[in-house]
């Protein structure tokens, strides 16, 4: 047995099948023991619904979920004992102190009194909450509540941890502390199921990712293999001065450029053949009297892959009359 999670034909309708809303549509995937598995998708793609089924909060309309070999529909109890859940909203009891929140959760998971106290102290230290352990959680900042929520989810040392969007809205320090903790727990043997739409976070943390869109798995692989499969979204990133002299349309019209995207003080030119584009770009700069400040060729990022697969678009510069690529978001244009 190497699978921590095995999902087959998982389907969920909100409301009655047929007349309800189909949120997850015959999804299959497996998560191996000791993996950090990223579950990516745009809003409304079915990420949280899938996670709620995996954590027994929703009943699948169809399909099976096996966790650590147990069929979740028949034998959820042993699974729940080994599972930790950090939902999107920090669900702490704001009327209780950090310490009491941890004590309550420890009791729910039947952690012995001695272990409960030791573990609570360790977690409060780790999350920088020891000094405020006696204060009611209603006085905590968003980041502190998030950290407490995670501490509550792992007080029983779960073998499988579900995290739903753990870092959005947090300051950089808190987000980093949480990512470090995920890595540390994974190094100690915890399997992590990370639901997120933060692509870079998944890229940094995940051994494999699944991209879900419209309730179906669109791709599933390691981040690097996914990027390799999308070589067509390679790009050349260039910074030109004076920046005001650059026109998105004219860059997008260079031969081989599929789209031109403004990225801060740089332009990102998507192409299938960066080496052929470079001399054309330098020629363009020379013609326009522009100075090349920096020039890089880039492989596809996981975000590119994600946008390509999910068909999201964020503002477009069209390549003179050529139909735009259906995937990636494009931005920029006539300036």
């Amino acid at each position, binding site marked *: 047995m190497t699978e921590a999670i095995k999902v087959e034909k998982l389907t969920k309708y909100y409301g009655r099948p047929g007349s309800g809303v189909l949120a997850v549509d015959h999804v299959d995937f497996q998560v191996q023991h000791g993996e950090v598995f990223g579950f990516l998708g745009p809003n409304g793609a079915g990420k949280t619904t899938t996670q709620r089924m995996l954590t027994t909060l929703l*009943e699948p309309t169809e399909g099976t979920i096996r966790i650590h070999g147990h069929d979740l529909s028949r034998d959820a109890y042993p699974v729940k004992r080994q599972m930790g859940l950090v939902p999107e909203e920090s669900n702490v*009891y704001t009327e209780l102190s950090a310490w009491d929140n941890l004590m309550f959760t420890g009791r729910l998971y039947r952690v012995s009194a001695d272990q409960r106290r030791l573990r609570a102290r360790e977690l409060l230290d780790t999350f920088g909450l020891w000094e405020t352990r006696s204060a009611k959680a209603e006085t905590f900042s968003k980041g502190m509540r998030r950290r407490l929520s995670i501490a509550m989810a792992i007080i029983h040392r779960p073998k499988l941890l579900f995290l739903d969007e753990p870092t959005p809205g947090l300051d950089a320090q808190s987000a980093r502390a949480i990512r470090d903790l995920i890595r540390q727990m994974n190094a100690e043997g915890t399997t992590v199921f990370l639901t997120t739409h933060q692509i870079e976070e998944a890229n940094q943390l995940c051994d494999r990712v699944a991209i879900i869109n419209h309730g179906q798995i669109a791709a599933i692989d390691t981040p690097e293999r996914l990027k390799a499969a999308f070589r067509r979204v390679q790009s050349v990133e260039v910074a030109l001065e004076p920046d005001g002299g650059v026109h998105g349309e004219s860059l997008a019209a260079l031969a081989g450029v599929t789209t031109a995207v403004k990225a801060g003080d740089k332009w990102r030119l998507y192409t299938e053949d960066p080496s052929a584009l470079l001399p054309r770009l330098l020629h363009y700069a020379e013609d326009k009297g522009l100075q090349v400040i920096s020039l890089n060729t880039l492989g596809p990022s996981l975000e590119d892959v994600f946008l390509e697969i999910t068909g999201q678009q964020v503002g477009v510069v069209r390549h003179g009359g050529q139909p735009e690529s259906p995937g990636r978001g494009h931005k920029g244009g006539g300036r």
Partner: protein
Amino acid sequence: MRDRGVQRLRDELAQAWAVVVKDVRVYYLTPPMIMFGLLLPFFLFFSFSIKREVGPEVGLSRLLALTTFFTASSAGPVIIPLERRNGTYDRLLAAPMSLATLLLGKTLVGAFFALIASAVPLLVGIFGLHVSLAGIGWLLAGLVLASLAFSAFGLVFGSFPAQSVGNIMMPSTLIRWPLLFLSGAFIPLEEMAPWARLLAYASPLTYTQDLMNHAVLGSGYLAPWLDLALLPLLVAVCLAVAARLHHRSRVLGY
């Protein structure tokens, strides 16, 4: 295998108790809840008893039934929607305990609150108004079972999948008030028209009021054992309905 079953049972009872203690600290020991639990039954009593020459015995009997009914059934429709909205209910549902354990914990905490609240009029009646009790056994058994029954009754409303307290409070109020007026708390069963008495039998409060009459006044309209037997039945029915509503919520995803 048997040892594992015993251990599981111990775990579940300890988890139910953890839910009780947490709910008491988070929701029940708050000034609004205490004021509501203690004052509302007194207001009701004076509203319907003043100028009606109600003696202290009848008054105590009514007040005990009303206090138990309102305090035990009030928390469920408030607390569970609040917990759903805050996401803390998911924490309970995802924990390694059965739904029955969670519902048991929620029922127990409402019942404890009702018992404590009903102790106030009882002590006032005994020591302040010098009311002598006709059947202490009926009184204690009745208060305990009625508290459990009405707490489970309130849980049914809380089990509807809503995150807004208002969406649950409105229907729960619309149902609880008619049950109060039908119950015989203000018009004794023996004075009701036969059709009204038939309606009164549909109110669970009827049996508690009748039992309190046996306990305080020494007589009632129905047999006290019948009043008493119906209360655990109400607990079982309400918990079954609450569990069914939870299951429906998981299935339909509301």
